[in-house]
Structure formats: structure tokens, C-alpha cells
């Protein structure tokens, strides 16, 4: 058969067959019967070129190339179409219920006390406070005497102390750390002292162990104005912009003047609500100007230096901030409780 005839036949064969395949794999097999480099019918025709008279060869070569190009593009087009249909089918088959649960590692969380402490530490370390952690077991001297609370001072009755022996006790206040710091560091001093403290008290708002955060600044010319300025900054950072502080007279043996510090109620903006018991204010911490006797007990010249100290209950802040209603929850590690606190 003449090459031209063979080519026409191939063309007809392709034209009639190309549309009859439903998978690209079958189409590929069909394609191979024409375009395979060795066995393909078009390649076979190429091999027949040697029998073509020399003068006809360019013309024949041209039509062979034409049919090859035509076949290639015809098959490519058909394949593209089939492939697209195949992908569409695959997509349809693989469609999922996107509302099914995610697969992931469940992340845990930190204790609410730690969350509050971290927040406080961040606020105060930005103001230049170092963090000091004292021991939980303290001597009578550091917990009381050096803090201007000598033996049998009535102020000792303010706190029910757990005693361990004649001279040692579970610290009732992180203020004990003040003395250790001031004995070992000369002004300027800015420390923040978080830690567990202990008092013999046990009800819905009191736990025999709780955490305190104590702050101490000792430098030249420190005043009540500086104390309030710092507490204003702290309050608005931890409770929200616009929260104000109010100082009112109180008493602690190691500060004078001593104050209780209230913050304007962040739930009602000071109008009076359940949280602030209608007063518009919430008591959050105690503070004052460091008593000269305390400075002198630590070998700091009280005529040259002055300072302020403040102390707050971490759980109290956590309970206010997160709305926790029973302090016991904090020490039970109930999964349902723990899950609610994410960093």
C-alpha cells in the first residue's frame, strides 16, 4: 500500500477510535499503537522510508511529520479532556464531611496562678523589677521580727501561722523576702517576689496555702505619689484601661503610712454591681511606705533612702479576673477546671 494510503488509514483509525475511550490509561494504550517510538504504526511508516524513491522522500517525510503532529495533538487534546473528567470524578469521590473533628495534639495549659504571675511579672519587669523567690519555710526572724513584728506583737494575730518548730514556720507573707533582698543588695532596689504562703484558714475564699506577689522599691525620695502612680499603671494593665486605684488608711507593721488599695470595679466601671458589692471598688492589695525600722534592720540608712512595698494575693487576682468562685478549685487539678485556662 502506498504510504499516502497508509497514512489515510491511520488517520481514519485514530479519528474513529479516539473518542471511544473512558480512561486516560486506555487512551494511552491506543495512542501507543500509533505513536510508540518502536512499535507505533507511524514509526513503522517511517521505517518504510528507505523504500521510497529518493526524490519523493522530502514530500513523504513531510506528510509523515504532518500526521505525527496531528496525532500527537489529537491525543493530547483527548487526554486532557479525559484527565480533567477523571480528576473531577476523583474529587467528587473524595469529598469529606468537613465538620468532622480535627486530628491534632491537644494542648494543655498553665495554672491560673502562673498565668496571673506571668502577667504581673511582665508588667513589673518592664518597669525594672527583678524577680526574687524566697523559701517557703522561714525563720521567725525573717517572717516577723525583722518586719517590725516582734514576738507577741498583736499584729501576729492578724495571721494564723503554721509553726514547724520554736524558730521556724511556714511563711505567712512573701514580705519575708524583702529582708533577704535588702540584706544582700543595696539601693536602688526593685524586686517582685512571688511565692506560696501559708495561713491556718480554710473556707470558700481562704485556703491554707495560697500565692502572694510582693513588690518592693527602695531608692532616694520614694513617696506615696510614686506608689500610687505605679499601682495605677499596674491596675490598668491587669484589669483594663481606665481602671483607677483608691488608697485608704490601714495598718501593716512593716509599712507606714500603710494603705489598702482598691481598684475601681472593672465589671461595672464603678457604678456598683454584684462583684464590687455595690461599692464601685474592689480591694486588691495592701501597700505602704517601708517602715524606717525595717530599713534599719537591713542596714539601710533610712535618712537617705525610702521605699514602698505592696503585696497582693495572686488567687484573689485570678478569681477576680477569671470569675472563679471557689479558691479550692485552684488546688484540685480537676480536668474540667484546668481545660479553661490557656496561655
Amino acid at each position, binding site marked *: 500500500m502506498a504510504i499516502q494510503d497508509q497514512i489515510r488509514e491511520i488517520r481514519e483509525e485514530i479519528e474513529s477510535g479516539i473518542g471511544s475511550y473512558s480512561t486516560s490509561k486506555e487512551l494511552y494504550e491506543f495512542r501507543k499503537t500509533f505513536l510508540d517510538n518502536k512499535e507505533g504504526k507511524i514509526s513503522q511508516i517511517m521505517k518504510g522510508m528507505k523504500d521510497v524513491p529518493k526524490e519523493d522522500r522530502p514530500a513523504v517525510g513531510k506528510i509523515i511529520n504532518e500526521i505525527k503532529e496531528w496525532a500527537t495533538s489529537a491525543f493530547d487534546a483527548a487526554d486532557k479532556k479525559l484527565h480533567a473528567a477523571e480528576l473531577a470524578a476523583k474529587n467528587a469521590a473524595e469529598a469529606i464531611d468537613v465538620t468532622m473533628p480535627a486530628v491534632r495534639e491537644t494542648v494543655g495549659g498553665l495554672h491560673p496562678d502562673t498565668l496571673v504571675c506571668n502577667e504581673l511579672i511582665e508588667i513589673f*519587669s518592664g518597669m525594672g523589677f527583678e524577680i526574687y523567690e524566697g523559701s517557703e519555710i522561714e525563720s521567725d526572724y525573717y517572717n516577723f521580727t525583722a518586719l517590725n513584728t516582734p514576738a507577741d506583737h498583736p499584729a501576729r494575730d492578724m495571721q494564723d501561722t*503554721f509553726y*514547724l*518548730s520554736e524558730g521556724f514556720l511556714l511563711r505567712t507573707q512573701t514580705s519575708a523576702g524583702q529582708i533577704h533582698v535588702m540584706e544582700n543588695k543595696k539601693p536602688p532596689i526593685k524586686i517582685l517576689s512571688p511565692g506560696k504562703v501559708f495561713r491556718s484558714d480554710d473556707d470558700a475564699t481562704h485556703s491554707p496555702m495560697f500565692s502572694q506577689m510582693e513588690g518592693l522599691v527602695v531608692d532616694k525620695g520614694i513617696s506615696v505619689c510614686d506608689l500610687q502612680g505605679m499601682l495605677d499603671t499596674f491596675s490598668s494593665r491587669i484589669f483594663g484601661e481606665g481602671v483607677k486605684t483608691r488608697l485608704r488608711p490601714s*495598718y501593716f507593721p512593716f509599712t507606714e503610712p500603710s494603705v489598702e488599695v482598691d481598684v475601681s470595679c472593672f465589671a461595672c466601671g464603678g457604678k456598683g454591681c454584684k462583684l464590687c458589692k455595690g461599692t464601685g471598688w474592689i480591694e486588691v492589695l495592701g501597700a505602704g511606705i517601708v517602715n524606717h525600722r525595717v530599713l534599719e534592720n537591713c542596714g539601710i540608712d533610712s535618712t537617705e533612702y525610702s521605699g514602698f512595698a505592696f503585696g497582693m494575693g495572686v488567687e484573689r487576682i485570678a478569681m477576680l479576673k477569671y470569675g472563679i468562685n471557689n479558691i479550692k478549685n485552684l488546688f484540685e*487539678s480537676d480536668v474540667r477546671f484546668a481545660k479553661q485556662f490557656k496561655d
Partner: protein
Amino acid sequence: MLAPLSWLREYVDIDVPAKELERLLFSVGFEVEELNEIGKDISGVVVGEVLTCELIPDTHIHTCTVDCGEKGTFQICCGADNVAVGGRYPVALVGATVYATAKDHVTIEGVMTIKKGKLRGVDSEGMLCSGVEIGVSEDMYPGAGYNGLLVLPADAPLGADVKPILGLDDYIFDIAITANRPDCQSIIGIAREVAAVLGKEFKMPALDYTENGADLDFNVTVEAPDLCPRYIAHYVSDVEIGQSPAWMRRRLALVGVSSISNMVDITNYVLKEFGQPMHAFDMADLENSEIIVRRATQGEKITTLDEKEFELNPANLVICDGHRPVALAGIMGGLNSEIKDTTKAVMFEAAKFARDNVRRTSRALGQSSDSSSRFEKGLDEYTTQLGMKRALHLVCELGCGKVSKLHIERSSGNSTEATPLTVSIAKMEEILGISVPENEIICTLTALNFEPEINGDELSVMVPPYRDDIDNNVQDIAEEVIRSYGYEHIVPSFLRTAKVTCGGLNQAQKDELKLKRALAAQGYYESMFYSFFSPRDLDMLKYPEDAPERNAIRIMNPISEDLSLMRTTLAPSMVNAAVRNLRRGNTAGRFFEIARKFIPKSLPLTDYPEEHMMLSVGVFGDGETFFTAKGAIETVADTFNLKFTYERGEKPFLHPGMTANVLLGDTVVGYLGRLSYEVCEELAIEKPVFVGELDYELLSKHFDSAIRFTPISKFASETRDLALVCSEEITCGALEEAIASSCKYITSVTLFDVYRGAQIGEGKKSMAFKLVFSPDDHEFTGEEIDGYVKRILKKLQHTMGVELR
């Protein structure tokens, strides 16, 4: 501290409502914990006169016509036996609120609102009231204690509210007094502050008396002046014991003191009014005409007024007559010399006893009283003198005895006068940070009785003798000034004069936080448990009697036995948490705690114990295995670039086959295991619980948080999976180690499967590892890796008898 408004009004002209006074006291540092209106439950009760009164046949009930003035005339039924025509009684009109009483007519059961009603078929428009029904006791109003109608004065205006007549319009302030102000543990102390805050004059109660009693030869010796710096005795003769007047009984009742007799009431009255504890001895019982204040002898006994006997020692101070103790100084009088109905003469005592000694004796004997608690708070000797004068005045006022000239006062010489103090105004303002106007300083301190004078920068004051809290320092004066001037004048500033300091966490604190976050990322929640636990916790975990964990520091005064030992291990708290969660239906959880254990150097403590940081982990519930729990331990290693190894371990509370010691190098740094079946059965839990502890303190010395970069290879790593058959004794760890050390290009060996079965053979297992080979200077070819694998296998076969599966 209870202070009735009516009593305060005796000494200060209070012209503001009770609520406003509460606010003012709060602003100067006296928080009113409770403001109680005495008659708050009573309303709509007026004076009424019974016009007619007829008994309903066969009952004890009368039908009365009651005239209530402009309120009207009402028919009211009444069952009281003392109802009579012409009598004036409290009438609760329809709509009034009064106390409902039980059948005994005495026990209050609540508040009720009066409605129109019928008694035995007769209409009744209101109720005639007894004292109990309107909250008035005999001490508050004479006659109110009668179990029948309260009889009002014949001149009580008809229709008028009974509350002012009966003193039910009064308020009681319950005030929190800070420990530095013992002088305010008295009515006059509060009255002084009220006067200052209102800018009014304080009127001192009358202190005068006439000495017209019989004289007496008597002596007082204070043998222990350190414990009794001042002792005042004054003799009163011609005593007539009887009832105190109504005003005194009422005031005592308002502050919770029952009236006993005039002499005893006077001592209690002075205690409440001046804060000075007083005692009255029956002269007839004082032997040898003397009082000796001395330390008790060893084994000496006294029976106090409440009939309790105490055995004393020289740490206790006693008041003795010529022969025996007659009072436990500052705490309670002796039964042997108490005031009786027959008492004809008394010796009054007003003294100051040392605060700490009263406190110690009271604690040691377990005996306390209003008097001892008052001494413990601290008392000044000026008030001791005033107290005696006031008592003697009251004797005269009540006419219950004749005050003698016999006054004996023993003192160790402490001043009872105001003391001068001069401070620098500049220094005071430096503390406050604001400038206080001179006139405000003068005004404030004058109101507080400090008699201030300003001379340039010098502020001179006279410290009142009752202000023992003033410590001769400018800070005290600054506090007094700002307290009254008001903290609202403070202008917040931000450390105007302070030096800049460098703050922040130190490395150890950062490391701790880093670890907490790493564990949280692994699904662990941070726990915080009490630093103390129960001896039973150690029993629960089957620690033997001689275990070091039993050597715990004991709290001398624990809340309960369950909270009595300082923790020597964190494991029990974690186990308890797991058990608590499971019992509450929480089926799974992962927790960790970083806290201290307490290791005593000696017991009882004579030195600081070691506070040793530990990390505990607890994992429980379905799906958790030893290896998921091991993830927590490996997280620690991973966070700080540590390499832990594991070996089979042992703990009395852990599964013997599922317990590991954790080692860092050759040192055991912790353990991990499954809670044993025995313990689980005892705790009635079925789900698996894994618990472990790491010595955080020790590990922290090896923490390496530094980040050091190693250049990454530009050649791709190749992996090979090898299933190796070996005998059961060979551990994964040993094989891993052998593989890793057998070829320098191996950068990771990870077990991914273990298989046991017939094809492998008895006593053998197949472990499949994924090996990663990382080239250093050229791309690996397949042949090269095959060569390494061949060499590794040869070595393993030779050293451990391991075959390729």
C-alpha cells in the same frame, strides 16, 4: 469593736446620719464591718392605750379597743395576762413588721407582717406586743423582759412610733480596729476619732468623785514590775450591791454584756467605755490587808470566777492577798474573792500588765476573757489612771458605795503625760510626695489632740499619752496627716527620682517557664497542690516505715492530720488528683507540677531545711500507656538538650513490670511507672494511672537552653528500615545504642514496630527500626548505604546475636 451610736453621742455631738459616719470612719482607716440598726426589723409599731377590755368566754383572750391617737382606734384581740384598761402598750398596726415567736413567746422564729385576722371568731386589727416581739430585752428597757405586754410610760404620746421611746432607733457600729490602734478598742477611743473626723469637740466622761468612805490600813507590793508596770488599788466602803440603773444596763446590753450587779457592771462598763480592764475584790476575802503582784510559784493553784482550776508556774503572774492568789493577772479574778450579794466593801484594781505575758499565759492555760484580749492588744498607763477615776465616779453616781481616801499606785515610772516630738515638714512631704497646706497640718493634728506648732520647717507636736503607736518618727506623723487630709490629694507619679534598673526573669526562672510551656504543648496541664500532705498519703503509696519519705517536717498546729506533713515527695498529691478526677467522671487527663519537697537536716527544725524542686507528672485514663507518659519525661530532655536513659526500676506503689528509673549519665534522676494493681484496687480505680517524678533541682544544673547552630548538610539523607530479630532480653535501648554507635553516618535510630510470633520463634522478638544516614561531604549512593547496613548487621550479629528478619 462594737460602738452604739447613742453611746458615742454622749461624748461627741454627732450631726450626721449613721451611714455618713460609717463613710467618714472608713476614710480615716476605721472600716465599719457592719452597721446594725437595732430596730431594723420593726416597723409600724405605735403607742396605744387600751380603752375597753373584755374576756372572750372560755378563753384567756381579751377583746380590746385600743386608742392609737391619730392612727385611729382599733379592735384588737390579746392573750397576754397583763392587759388592762388604761395601760399603754406597743401596738403593731396592720402592715407592721415584728418578730414572730414560738409557743413559749420567747424564742424568735423570724419576722412577720401583721394582717387583719380573727381570733376565736372575733376580728382583730393589729397586735399588742411584748418586749420580745419588738426586739427589746429587759436590760434594754425595764419591764421589757416580762412574758406579757411591754408596758409603756403613761405619758407616751398615743399614736407615736415606739422606736425612739424604746431606743430602737439606735445603731451599732461594728468597727475593725487595726492592731496599731489599741486605744480605739473603747467607746472613748472611737469617740475621739469621730470628734476629729467631724471637727467637733470630744467631751471626756465625768471623772470626779468624792472621797467620803472609811479609811483602811492596806499595802500593795509589786514584786514583778516588768510584768506589771502600773498597779492602782482604790478602796470603796459602804457598798450596797444592787441592780445598775437602766441606762447602764442598756449600754452594756448594746455591746453584748449582761448586767450582773452594780459593782460588777461598773468594772465592765469601764472596760467597754475606756478600754481599761478593771477588777473588784471583795474586801472581806482579802487576807492580811495586802495585795502582792508576783509570779506564781511552781504548782500553785487558782480557781477562776468561771470555776475552772489552773495549776500555775513562774511564767504566770498572779495577784495575791497575804496568803494566796486571788486573781490571774489580767485574765480573770479568783472565785475566792468575787463580788457577792453580801459584799460590803471592795478593792478596785486598775493595772497595766505586760501584753506579751498576758498573751502567753492566756495561750498556755487556754483561758481568756475580754480583759485578757484587751491587755494583749496593748494598753497605755494614762488610760489605766483614767479608768480608775471613772470607776470611782460611777460608784458615786450610782450611790452604791463610798469612795475612800485609800489610793495606792505602784508604777515603774513610765510617763502618763503627752510627749513632745519634732519632725521636719520637708521630710514628711518627701514621704507623701505632696505639699500639705500648713493650716491643714495644724487643723488635722489639732483635731487628733496632738497640739501642733509650726516653726519654719519644724513641726512640733505633743503625742497624746494614749497613742503608744506613735514611734517618734516622721513616718508616724506623715501617716496621721495624710489619713485625715485624705489620700485623694495624692498625685500619682511614676518614680520621679528613682534610678533606672534592669529587671526581668533570671535564667532559672526562664527555664522553668520554658519547661511549663513545653509540657503544656504536649497536652499537660499545670497543677498546684498544697505543700503539705497526710501521713496517710505515704501509707496509701505503701512507703515502708523506714523510707526516707517518712522523715517529714511536721506542722505543730496543723488544720487537720491530713494537712500535717511537709511534702517529701510530690507523687501522692498527683495520685490523689488522678483518683479525684476519675471519681468525678473525668475519664482522662495529663498533669504536671513543679514544686518543692522539704528535706529536714534535723528534726525538730533548728535550721532551714532543704527546699528541693521536683517535677511530677501524672497521666491517667484510656489510651494512655507507659510510653505516652514517658513523653513527658522526654519533653524535659528535649527542652534542655539532655539525654536520658532508662532502666527497669522499683517503687512500692508502682507496677513491678512497668516501672523505670530515669538516668542522666550514671545518676538516677527520677522514675516513672504505672500505679500498681494493689494500690488501684485499694483506691477503687480501674483505669490506668501513670506517675513519675524528676529531680528538677538536680537536672536544672544540667539544663542547656543555649541555641547553637550546626550548618545543615547540602546532601540528602537516606533512610533504611531494618527488622531485626533478637532474644527477648535485649532491650530496645540497648539495640538502638548499638546501631547508633556502629556507623558514624547514622543520625537517628527510631523503633517503629515490634513483632512476636511463630515465625520468629519462642523467646524472640522482631524489632523494626528506621535508620537515617546523613552524609557529610558527598551524595550517598545506594551501594554505599547497603555497605554500611551490611557492616552494621555483621556487628550486631557478632555482639548481640541479632539477625535480619
